[in-house]
Structure formats: C-alpha cells, structure tokens
C-alpha cells in the first residue's frame, strides 16, 4: 500500500501544473531554433570564391538577413527542395526580399566550380550567391559552423558519387549575429516569417 501511495503521489507530481511564470524562451518568435545569447557569426575563411565577384565574406552582407546553406549541385533532393523553398520565400517577402540574401556554399568542390554553381543557382533565383574553393578551405568553413559533409562512394563502383551533408539552414541577422538554425523541411512561409522577424531586429 505504501508503495502504491508513493507511486500515485509521484504520478500526481508528474502532472501538477506549475504556476511560476518563466521568461519567454523565444522572444523574437522564430519558427527556427534560436541561439541564446546570439553571438557573431563566424567570418568565412579566405579562399571561398563567390559566384558573383571576388571572395565570399560574411561582412559583405551586413544589413541583410543571410540564409547560409551547405550543399552540392548534384544533390538529388535536399538542395533543390531547400533552394526552391527559399526562392519562394523571397517571392513571399515582396519588396522586403532585397533584405534577404541566400548564400549557398558547396561541399563538393571537385565537381562544383564557380561556373557550375552559378548556373545551378540561377535556376532558382538570380539573387542567390554561391561559394566554392579548395576542399580544405571549405572544410574549415564548415567547421566554424558545425556543418558536416561526407563523400558517399557510388554503389555500383562508377564515378557518380554522392555527398551526405548538413541539411539545416543558418540564419544570420543584419548585424552579423548567428541567430537561428532552421531544420530542413520548413515551408517558404516559415522562412519568410523568420526573415521578417529578423529584419525587425536592431
């Protein structure tokens, strides 16, 4: 009986509502996962070349909300879905789209040269900027963001290998702070919502 009483008591405790009010854990109301406190996003290492001009640096986009994506142009599903979703988010933003910058850095420099990445991104949105460079430089950039990438040998022994890579999208605010991380699979509406929230931050 004592054991039963203890169990019932513990069960009751498991569901007792707490009346203490907690601080709002997500004060800017993002759909994405939020870093608290936000910290400056890591600058890109030298040697990441941009598809539009020169080296790709984060500082260049200060004043815009940056959505950083890691992927590769031979990606069969995740990258096309993500980039199409982000292109749609830009359309949803209307005149505010100019404040959103998608930066797509390849994890497959072997096949993704500048021309190839440029052509690939143009199929989604003309404003998207890509980056590529030497494998070691790109690996260092991934390390700074905690992104992963791994080559998958072709199943049949051919040359057409695959890449396993991070599918999340890093959200950087206008002041260059890494604010949030959006898992793969969110809608264009969610991205547009979060970009608007980040645009409103000082």
């Amino acid at each position, binding site marked *: 009986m004592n054991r039963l009483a203890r169990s019932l008591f*513990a069960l009751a405790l498991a569901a007792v509502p*707490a009346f*203490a009010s907690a601080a709002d854990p997500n004060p800017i109301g993002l759909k994405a996962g939020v870093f608290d406190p936000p910290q400056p996003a890591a600058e890109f290492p030298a040697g990441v070349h941009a598809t539009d001009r020169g080296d790709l640096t984060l500082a260049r986009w200060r004043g815009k909300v940056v959505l950083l994506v890691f992927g590769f142009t031979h990606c069969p599903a995740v990258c096309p879905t993500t980039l199409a979703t982000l292109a749609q988010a830009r359309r949803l933003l209307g005149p505010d789209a100019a404040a959103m910058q998608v930066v797509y850095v390849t994890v497959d420099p072997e096949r993704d040269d500048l021309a190839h990445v440029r052509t690939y991104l143009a199929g989604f949105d003309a404003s998207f900027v890509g980056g590529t460079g030497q494998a070691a430089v790109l690996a260092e950039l991934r390390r700074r963001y905690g992104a992963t990438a791994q080559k998958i040998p072709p199943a049949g022994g051919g040359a057409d290998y695959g890449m396993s890579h991070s599918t999340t999208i890093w959200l950087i605010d206008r002041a260059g702070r890494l604010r949030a991380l959006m*898992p793969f699979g969110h809608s264009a509406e969610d991205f547009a919502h979060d970009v608007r929230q980040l645009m409103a931050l000082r």
Partner: protein
Amino acid sequence: MKAVHVASWTLAAVVSAAAGWAAFAPLSVASRDEPFEIPKGTWARRMAGNKVEILPNRIDLTLGLNDQLLLRNLDDVPQQFGPVLVMPGQSFRLPFEKASTYSFDCTAHASGQMTIVVAEAPATPWDRIQWRWNQFKKKTRA
C-alpha cells in the same frame, strides 16, 4: 474480516479515482522545454579518454507539452550538439509545431543520425494515462 473488506474497497476507490484523474484531468507542464546539458568539464573528460554521451539516439517530444528541444552548453569550449554547434554558455532552443519524425546528422552517434519523434498531444483518456505514466517513469528514472 470486516477491516480487510473496508481496506479493499478503499484501495479500489483510490485506484479508480487516480485512474479517473489521470484519464480526464487536463494535462499541464511547467515548461515545454526538453532540456539536455553539456556539463562543465565535459571536454576535459573526453580529452582524458572518457566516453561522454549527452544526447540519446532518439528523443520523444509531445506537441503542446514538451515540444521544444533545449540544448545548453555549460562547458568552456564550443560543443557540437547533434546538428548544432553551441558556444560556451550558450543555449539553443528548437521548437516543433508538427507531429513527425525528424532525423538530424549527428557525428556523436555511431549511426550518424539523431532522431526526434514528435507526437500529437494526447487526445483520448487512454492517451493521457499513457503520457502521465511515461512522465512518471521518466521522473523516477532521473
């Protein structure tokens, strides 16, 4: 004999009342966070060759109750928490709005994947009993 009879009826009444409460009382939680922490000194312990696992392979969440994954890094160095790099003293809170199974890359696990299963909020009396029972088991394990 009469005392035993009374005790049996009392026990049955208590169990029935508890089951009724567990089935029909509204569910409520103090926080929607499902927290995981990397304690201070974790990096040092790993460097010393100790195996330290923080995140399980699978995390179960329930919409409207515990539907926010909260990762806290209390160590002195940046830590990779599943798919997220969390700086010292920083936390990362990921809300979920849809019931589904989410897979993330996670180099900390042998499978290379971490799975988060988000279930719908318990809708039936039986679902509520099960949820409370699972919470009870979790609390008694802790």
